[in-house]
């Protein structure tokens, strides 16, 4: 009898309607409007590589030791260096990092003795050409510059 009355008065339908009505609360919306709002990725996320510079002098921290290039399983890092005859130090001339081949294992980051090379939390690394995925020293130092959307 109870089942019959339930069927006649559409209790199940009313329950369904209540669910949809209740869910209209705008506070429940979990959509992220991506280019306007960017997600906070995990702290240990490994994304775009970065070649750090000294925060004050803006000189590169890299000592051109080539350990990252040796550590890289994909051998995508090329470190160019030149011996400075006065200071007897190796100085970085160029640094390329092919992000198209990178698998973001983080071994280069671990190998770096001076914490110059780092995998950051930036994730917008798309480019229009394959060549654009090969990052040179300037790009690695500046980092990716994503467009800011105001609206």
């Amino acid at each position, binding site marked *: 009898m109870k089942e019959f009355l339930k069927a006649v008065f559409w209790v199940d*339908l009313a329950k*369904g*309607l209540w*669910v*949809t*009505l209740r*869910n*209209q609360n*705008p506070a*429940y*919306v*979990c*959509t992220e*409007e991506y280019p306007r709002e960017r997600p906070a990725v995990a702290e240990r996320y490994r994304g775009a590589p970065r070649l750090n510079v000294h925060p004050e002098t803006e000189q590169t921290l890299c000592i051109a030791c080539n350990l990252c290039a040796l550590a890289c399983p994909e051998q995508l890092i090329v470190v160019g260096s030149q011996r400075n005859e006065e200071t007897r130090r190796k100085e970085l001339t160029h640094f390329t990092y092919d992000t198209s081949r990178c698998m973001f294992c983080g071994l280069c980051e671990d190998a770096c003795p001076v914490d110059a090379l780092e995998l950051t939390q930036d994730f917008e690394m798309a480019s229009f050409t394959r060549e654009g995925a090969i990052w040179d020293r300037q790009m690695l130092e500046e980092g990716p510059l994503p467009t800011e959307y*105001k*609206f």
Partner: protein
Amino acid sequence: MEEILSNPYVFPLIVTTLIVALFPLVAGYIVLLERKVLADMQVRLGPMRVGPYGFLQPLADAFKLLLKEDIIPAGADKWIFWFAPVLSTFTALTAFAVIPLSDKFFVADVNIGILFILAMSSVGVLGLILGGWSSNSKYSLLGSLRSAAQMVSYEVPLGFSLVTGLMVAGTLSMQGIVRSQLDQGVWVAFANGGLMLVPAVLFMISAIAETNRAPFDLPEAESEIVAGFHTEYSGFRFALFFLAEYASIFVISSIGVTVFWGGWLRPFPNVESLGVVFNYAFPMLVFSILGLMCLRGVIKLMLIEQKAVMAVVGGAMFLFVLLFAIPAMNELIIGLFWFLFKVFVIVYSFIWFRGTFPRFRYDQLMRVGWTYLIPISIGALIVNAFAMVSGEILEVFGY
């Protein structure tokens, strides 16, 4: 000037022009409402990009549809393919001619009003069938066949529940139906001690089926037959079908409102003391809430253009509040307000049902129509007839 204004054809012509010019916009905003409400129900945002909170999306959609390539399939019957959306739109818009938007705003008060609307909406089905058939596509044909079968099945309970309503009202004229509800002092849906609620609900169900809306949207079931009868249509022709669909939703909601829910009457139309509440307080409250929400948008939005659009909309809402506060103006537009408010509630519940109920299977659709709705609607007709007659008999004997 005086001569022109006193001509009996002038005011209906103005109203007609207004309806034909404004309805595409209204349909666009019904679509936006549908997208937003469905998005809310599914915990999404819906359109947010064009205008503040997607407010100008309908304009962008219309512009896109105008610019799209107009394709006629190679195997299509060109003339019928061209004619079908025109037929659908024409009949859907013609039905507006007898809808009593208020006691002052209407095109014509015909003594067969409701019959006219039903006839027009039945011809409108022909547009869907022709469109599906002339496309020379199996999906379109299946869609239009389903549509035809569904219309035939659901027009019967729709008709019976309308007949029940008309029996209580005692006239076929749309204005007459509303006036009789005013005389009886009760909306038809609550007449006969609540017995009329059954045909009112049945009407709602068959109206959803008649307009091919979910959960009865088999003619355009995406998962089975792509888009049904308008699979092959694109660009402006598709826009016309869309317009016709939303016009028929509006029209059938208007019939429901007129016959069952009191047309342009406010709730408790005969209780004088509630006049202030329902004629002044309620519309002013509704519009001031809308206006305040717009103001909140103005504060929260970041771009100056979006703030401006939102401020204009909010200003319009506060203007409405002022209009409803002026007694002379209030008398003019309060009927329109109540009619459109009720239509809005019904359209909203159409969207609500779409967001809630899954689509019927074809055999379930037919079973619901023929084995439940039709017998129940006939039963409701008989029971209500007896209720009315017994009420009269009791009156004769002095009870």
